[in-house]
């Protein structure tokens, strides 16, 4: 076997590294520091491997590896293309940061069963990469299901009755949507198109009437439960019982990103942007996604638990990506893909903050956070940065993705979407900014000390450093959005 750093070997390495980590971690069960070292080293190596694939793809290469045949005509095969690489970069870059945070959180809280935690994390990352690099719908489906199953123990980590209930909703909803809607959609695609491979321009051109195309799209979009399109979004708030590093994984690093990435991938590489725009089969989805977007934001406003509010915020933000995909234009697809990146950075920051507040002060409800800005200035500042990015204000990354989606909607002739985006940004302000404002400007309940007395009670350093890194990332991404756009543009370029 050729051990050189060929792109094909890089793909295999990207999948092998987290898998090997998952196998090694249980062996280090009795030596926690060694065990954490395995996670950190693997995460670092993985990021390096995936970033090494970038120049190949930018140069026009599309490396692929076929592993073996599972069913006649269906291989377990991988192929790196620009969209997949974007997702892989997000997942592999955030895993090390999330791992450092996890160590801080898990040790800070004295959580039990940490070995299982890190093992499942590694398997989840491996699944995410499998989804990112899948060459055909079948490979994607296998890793999609593996992601559901490997995150179930993470969601139910606390082991309480509540965690079990949350886990039930999580597992049943995700398995139900994928088995009853997504799998039939994949099978139907295979039968109609004769192949399950992704192809630029799609594989369904001229094969189905617009009505059937729309129906198939519905099966896909609702079947990809991880994209949390209403009404199949309930698993996301239910998964809030998980420890915060898991929430960060779910919302930013892997799970929901896998969902919306799959939606984008299906729209671009199975249906084809041109096929969809000509047939108008995705028009209904723009309305549904817009409605979900606004509804989720409204529900977020009504939440009193911080993580619950962030969860519904994620539901809303995911609908941005689905909306962008539904526009069926190049600019829309680019906006959606860019939003995956921007939202990942913003949301992970927000969740890191929420977790830090829990570790330092055991506070979970928003009304408890009055005045906490003085005890946790760094945390709340990071929260401010993350909020601004989610709201979409420059100079933070989130502004570019919203801009592109707006552009895409005008391109597609759906100008009302601009109004939707404006309204939702206002709602974002309404449910995020008060938290920051009250943290800084309202004195904490029961404390008569004037603000600014210098008594800081911040989270452990292992929680703070990742938080600061990701908030910096929100800022950096504003300036490097153009580079990300160049990568994504390769995905939707005409073949």
């Amino acid at each position, binding site marked *: 076997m050729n051990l050189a750093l060929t792109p094909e070997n890089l793909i295999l390495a990207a999948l092998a590294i987290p898998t090997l980590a998952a196998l090694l971690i249980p062996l280090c069960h009795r030596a926690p520091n060694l065990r954490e070292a395995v996670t950190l080293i693997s995460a670092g190596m993985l990021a390096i491997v995936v970033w090494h694939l970038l120049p190949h793809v930018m140069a026009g290469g599309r490396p692929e590896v076929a592993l073996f045949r599972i*069913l006649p005509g269906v291989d377990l095969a991988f192929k790196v293309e620009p969209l997949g690489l974007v997702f892989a970069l997000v997942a592999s870059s955030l895993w090390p940061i999330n791992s450092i945070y996890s160590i801080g959180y898990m040790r800070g809280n004295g959580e039990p069963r940490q070995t299982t935690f890190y093992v499942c994390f590694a398997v989840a990352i491996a699944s995410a990469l499998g989804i990112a690099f899948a060459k055909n719908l079948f490979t994607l*489906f*296998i890793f999609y299901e593996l992601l559901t199953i490997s995150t179930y123990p993470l969601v139910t980590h606390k*082991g309480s009755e509540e965690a079990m209930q949350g886990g039930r909703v999580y597992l049943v909803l995700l398995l139900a949507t994928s*088995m009853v809607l997504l799998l039939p959609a994949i099978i139907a695609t295979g039968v109609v198109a004769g192949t399950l491979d992704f192809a630029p321009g799609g594989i369904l051109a001229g094969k189905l009437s617009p009505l059937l195309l729309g129906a198939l799209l519905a099966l896909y979009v609702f079947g990809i439960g991880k994209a949390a399109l209403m009404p199949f979004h309930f698993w996301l708030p239910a998964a809030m019982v998980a420890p915060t590093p898991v929430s960060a994984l779910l919302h930013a690093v892997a799970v929901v990103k896998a969902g919306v990435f799959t939606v984008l991938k299906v729209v671009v590489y199975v249906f084809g942007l041109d096929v969809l725009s000509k047939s108008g089969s995705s028009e209904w989805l723009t309305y549904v996604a817009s409605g979900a977007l606004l509804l989720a934001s409204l529900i977020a406003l009504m939440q009193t638990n911080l993580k619950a509010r962030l969860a519904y915020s994620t539901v809303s933000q995911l609908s941005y990506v689905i909306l962008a995909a539904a526009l069926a234009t190049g600019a829309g697809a680019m906006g959606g893909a860019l939003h995956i990146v921007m939202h990942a950075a913003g949301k992970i920051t927000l969740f890191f903050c929420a977790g830090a507040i829990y570790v330092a002060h055991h506070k979970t409800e928003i009304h408890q956070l009055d005045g906490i800005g003085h005890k946790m200035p760094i945390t709340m500042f990071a929260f401010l940065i993350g909020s601004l990015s989610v709201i979409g204000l420059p100079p933070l990354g989130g502004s570019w993705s919203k801009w592109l989606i707006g552009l895409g909607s005008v391109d597609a002739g759906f100008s009302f979407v601009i109004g939707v985006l404006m309204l939702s940004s206002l709602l974002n302000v309404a449910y995020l900014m008060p938290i920051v404002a009250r943290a800084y400007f309202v004195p904490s309940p029961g404390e008569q000390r004037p603000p600014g007395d210098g008594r800081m009670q911040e989270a452990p350093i292992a929680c703070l450093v990742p938080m600061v890194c990701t908030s910096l990332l929100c800022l950096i991404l504003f300036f490097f959005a153009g580079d990300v756009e160049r990568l994504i543009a390769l995905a939707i370029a005409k073949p």
Partner: protein
Amino acid sequence: MSSIEAHLPILQVLVPLFGALVSAFFRRGVFAWAVALVVSWACFFISAWLLVKVMQTGQTLSYVMGGWSVPQGIEYRIDVLNAFVLVLVTSVGAVVMLYAKRSVAHEVDTHRQAWFYTMYLLCLTGLLGITVTGDAFNVFVFLEVSSLATYVLIALGRHRRGLLASYQYLIVGTIGATFYVIGIGLLYVVTGSLNLGDIAERLGPASADYSRPILAGLAFLTVGICLKLALFPMHVWLPNAYAYAPSVATAFLAGTATKVAVYLLLRIYFTLFGKAFTFAQLHVAEVLLVLSVAAMFLASFSSVFEQHAKRMLAYSSVAQIGYITLGISIANQLALAGGIVHLFNHAVTKAALFLAMGAVFYRTGTLRIDDFAGLGRKMPLTMAAFVIGGLSIIGVPGTAGFVSKWYLAIGALEKGYWPLVFVIMLSSLIAVVYIGRIVEAAYFREATDRVASVREAPASMLVPLWILTAATVYLGIDTRATADVALSAAKMLLGGGR
């Protein structure tokens, strides 16, 4: 060597038969077990040899007993389909026998253990005989041999309800066998032959004059075999029989008895009568379709509310058999292949699950799901195997169960039955609930006093369990051994395989 090779078909049946005889002379269970183990593995090698021969030559093997030629003599015919089923039955038997020593010692009274192995070998003889023979009455003989042995096997446990379950199965099973022999009798009257191939040839010309008796024969055969198959609603014997039999018996039966009955149904429908007659004249497809869907849903629902772990898995088996018969009812190459491959996949998976339950019973002495609290930590390997088997029942990709559902769904879609695709997937979802209940109990609840001091199962039980569990995963990834064989078997059956 070549003389052994020439007589392989009859050896497949004689070896376990003589093994049963030898085993009956022993008083101590452990010697009988040794005989059973050696015989089971010998049978496995014979069946593997036969399968290789059939695959290599691509032709049906034919062996006539005592040199009496067809149609007066009894002929053994082996083609791809029954070679496949032979390998299935013998491999499940071989692996279960590895497990059996401790389990039977624990669950069966000392003075009965040798009888247990004797009955097991007789059951094996019967099942292999049904599969390997090409003579309709010979099938009945072996059917009764295996059934009688099964009735005894079920009753040999210590549970008092086992006796009742055995009796229930005795009644129902005898009715089934009687229906079968009536059906064969009718065909004999019409065609004058008992050889399956011969009857098939003679049915064509005879059907013009004797269409009523032939139809009646087909109906009796269908009902008789479906009673053995445990097709809903003729499944009522199965839950209690599986629940109260000793664990080894349950695991073996779950993996073999109903599967051999399915094989028999396939032979009757496709080889004997031919697809055209069966599906056109008797509306078999519609009836089977409705009953299969009913089985898939109603049996799965019954599983959800069961507290007894083995009975829950038994209802799950009834539902899974529904998938197999669904494939038969759709009757195009892909769906039929899906049904045949599920025959294999489900056998392996269910045997593994019942072995896991047997290991739990061995250590804890209980089979109530509520008592499984905390077992995930006390018996991690056993429960991990259970989880994987459960995933296969749900049909998660990467496990064998997914492959079957894939073929069934494509087959249904190709025939235009797209609502069936959703039905198949929806019913699989119910499995999430009943498997999930055991997972939640084992991993989320604190161990009660009852199970506080249990250890992991012994290696002699874990190794066979994990052999089958690994097979469940392997067969979900490398489908060449099962799916390709199933596809060619389906093609042969639909082409009028003879």
